[in-house]
């Protein structure tokens, strides 16, 4: 390609293709850093707890939800420290479970507040936790494939 210290000359097409291949492998490698085993189950449990806390009487429910959010922030920080990276870009195959995860809370709130369907929080908890676990399974499979 060129010397590290000197000015870079333009690569030949073959060199450019090799470079693109290498940086593709580097990006894959960082995406496939294995998350700690506790991470996805812990986040799934916290997502479920945050939803189920809405079934508790006020203000206990709100306090539990706040505690869960604080625990989630700590878990994500711990995860980042253990892994050495923050903020993977989310691959397209994750968009659907992520969308489901994000949509569960407002959907349950509407069903509860407008239609009085309290069970919606249980369904949202199961769906949200399931989405996180699905993400974890996809991540584990990607790590194993890259190993």
């Amino acid at each position, binding site marked *: 390609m060129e010397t590290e*210290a000197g*000015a870079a000359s333009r*690569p*030949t*097409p073959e060199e450019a293709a090799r470079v693109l291949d290498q940086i593709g492998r580097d990006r894959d*490698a960082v*995406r496939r850093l294995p998350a700690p085993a506790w991470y996805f189950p812990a986040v799934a449990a916290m997502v479920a707890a945050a939803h189920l806390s809405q079934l508790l009487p006020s203000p206990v429910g709100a306090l539990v939800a706040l505690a869960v959010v604080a625990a989630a922030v700590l878990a994500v920080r711990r995860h980042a420290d253990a892994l050495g990276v*923050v*903020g*993977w870009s989310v691959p397209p195959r994750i968009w659907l479970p992520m969308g489901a995860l994000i949509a569960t809370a407002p959907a349950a709130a509407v069903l509860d507040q407008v239609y009085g369907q309290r069970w919606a929080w249980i369904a949202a908890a199961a769906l949200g936790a399931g989405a996180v676990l699905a993400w974890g399974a996809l991540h584990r499979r990607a790590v194993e494939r890259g190993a």
Partner: protein
Amino acid sequence: MTDGDGFDATIHAPNRLRVCALLDAVSEAEFGTVQQQLEVSASVLSKHVGVLADAGYVAQRHAVRDTRRRVWLSLTAEGRRAYRAHVAALRAIVGEAEGAGA
């Protein structure tokens, strides 16, 4: 150091390009993680990070965790733009050759 087509001589040095590729895939990466992925010494990585930081492409954030001092690296907005333009320029070089050969 950027040509009209986005080719950036500062980024193109092998290890610097790999640093940018790693950082483009995440928001932030710890210095030790990048070093491990590139399989280079801390001093070599430090030198390249310094060049990228001087160019305004990489930002460094110092943090202490469990009494250990750690350095987190990230691409700046300018760095991300320059890296992506550089990759587009490399793809164009490959594409031109394929087009000429077709």
